[in-house]
């Protein structure tokens, strides 16, 4: 079932710069889609159309059957939650719990439901101990998790994440990956904008590659990531695990999805070699 549909969307900024050119794309319910591409490719502009922050100059964007030009961002945001790249652009409340409450109050949730969703979100993202703290004193990783908690608290159908791994250490990235797997298991529709191919590879999303405001590839990540010429054109690098796999003479059945899988295979290969 199609949840978001871009129909021949073009977008020209007020400065006259064309950010999107004739983009057609559909996102199905429960899909995980990653949008990659060089800086200025139009990735962020594309996702800002999903909740009506930007309206197409030409074409149309339909979210859950509603044309984004016919409704407000506040209405669309109930279904599409966007986590922006910089958490400092949204945190303002005097406490973490009020920060999470903010959107739910705007959407008119009942107080009982707000408390229930607040407890769940803080627990899910490991932020319970900061409940009464100011969001401004949290570390970068905690702020990022708080912005995600703020969004998932109101349970939108689609979760859009703009560069979720920027400024995150490896431990935080691992936590984010766990959160993604949980979200995927709950059937959420996820759209991730990222340059971080190493982070995306184990998640194995559907991949949309953008360049110069156009979609230049759309399909399975394992297929697109194998096309070096395409990746070079869009300034996207291959994940290291895929490069390792490509360099092997006696390949396993499919590319490694994580380091442990690669380690196990190499261990087995060594054992077989020594046995010979």
């Amino acid at each position, binding site marked *: 079932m199609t949840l978001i549909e871009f129909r021949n969307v073009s977008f020209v900024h*007020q400065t006259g710069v064309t950010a999107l050119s004739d983009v057609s794309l559909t996102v199905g319910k429960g899909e995980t889609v990653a949008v990659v591409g060089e800086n200025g490719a139009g990735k962020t502009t594309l996702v*800002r159309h999903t*909740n009506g*922050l930007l309206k197409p100059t030409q074409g149309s964007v339909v979210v859950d059957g509603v044309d984004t030009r016919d409704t*407000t*961002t*506040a209405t669309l*945001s*109930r279904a599409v*939650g*966007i986590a*922006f790249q*910089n958490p*400092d*652009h*949204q*945190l*303002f409340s005097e406490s973490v719990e009020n920060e999470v409450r*903010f*959107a739910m109050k*705007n*959407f008119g949730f009942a107080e009982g439901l707000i408390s229930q969703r607040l407890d769940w979100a803080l627990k899910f993202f490991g932020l319970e101990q900061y409940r009464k703290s100011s969001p*401004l004193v949290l570390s970068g990783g905690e702020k990022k998790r708080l912005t995600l908690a*703020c*969004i998932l608290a*109101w349970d939108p159908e689609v979760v859009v994440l703009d560069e979720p791994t920027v400024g995150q250490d490896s431990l935080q990235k691992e936590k984010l990956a766990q959160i993604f797997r949980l979200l995927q298991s709950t059937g959420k529709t996820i759209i991730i904008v990222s340059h971080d191919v190493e982070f995306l590879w184990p998640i194995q999303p559907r991949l949309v590659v953008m360049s110069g405001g156009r979609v230049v590839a759309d399909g399975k990540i394992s297929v697109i990531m194998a096309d070096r010429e395409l990746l070079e054109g869009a300034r996207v690098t291959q994940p290291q695990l895929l490069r390792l796999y490509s360099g092997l003479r006696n390949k396993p059945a499919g590319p490694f999805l994580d380091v442990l899988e690669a380690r196990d295979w190499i261990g087995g290969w060594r054992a077989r070699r020594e046995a010979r």
Partner: protein
Amino acid sequence: MYWLSGGFVFRRVVSPFHNLDPRVKLLVSLEFFVLSLLAHTVAAIVLILLAILVVAAVAKSLRRIGRTIAFSGLFAAFIFAVNFLFGLGLLDAILYSVRFLAIISSTSVFFVTTSPDELEQIMKWMRVPRDIVFAFVTAIRFIPVVMLDAFQIMDAQKSRGLEFEKGNIVRRVRNMVPILIPLVVNSVIRSGELAEAMESRAYGSTPKPTSLYGMRMRWHDTAVALVSLLLVLVVALYIYHFVSF
């Protein structure tokens, strides 16, 4: 909002007015400022405003100055209403509101056509202390950055269901809190980072730093300065001697 905010921000354009020495641009702007204060009839102040628009057209910045006028129009309407309601005649109320527009436009012509670097050179030439010059020019330089921040914060809060246009005036003012707090916090963080970066790059290590670029008056700069001074003198004398102007 974005459209309006562009009316006060410098944009590099190739035009005869942009190429003038920044001191001459300041002089022309000051002349219009003084003339706007001297004019005491509606006809005179409208002519001065038109002259400013001619200069803006020469500077290929007519649209940007137009934005300034559109933005100031609300305040001008307020000035008109207050003066008219509190006993001044219709013509006097119009005079004060158009004078306000002329003053704003004259300063806007200077800021829209003068880069922060040129502004720094002028202030140094006026022997303003270096720290004050730096603080002032940095503030000007950061206006577009802070504006961009404000738009991004607004987008983030709209995405969390905040509706700025909803409710009465009190609610609308309260709706600005989620914008202002992150904006101020980000600006404070940025200023701290900038101070550290400047210190790391030896800011203040020498009392008289040298400049890579300097100001140079060319013959056409001098000509524009002299002609404009002459014109202002003639117009000022005309205003004083012929009240009916």
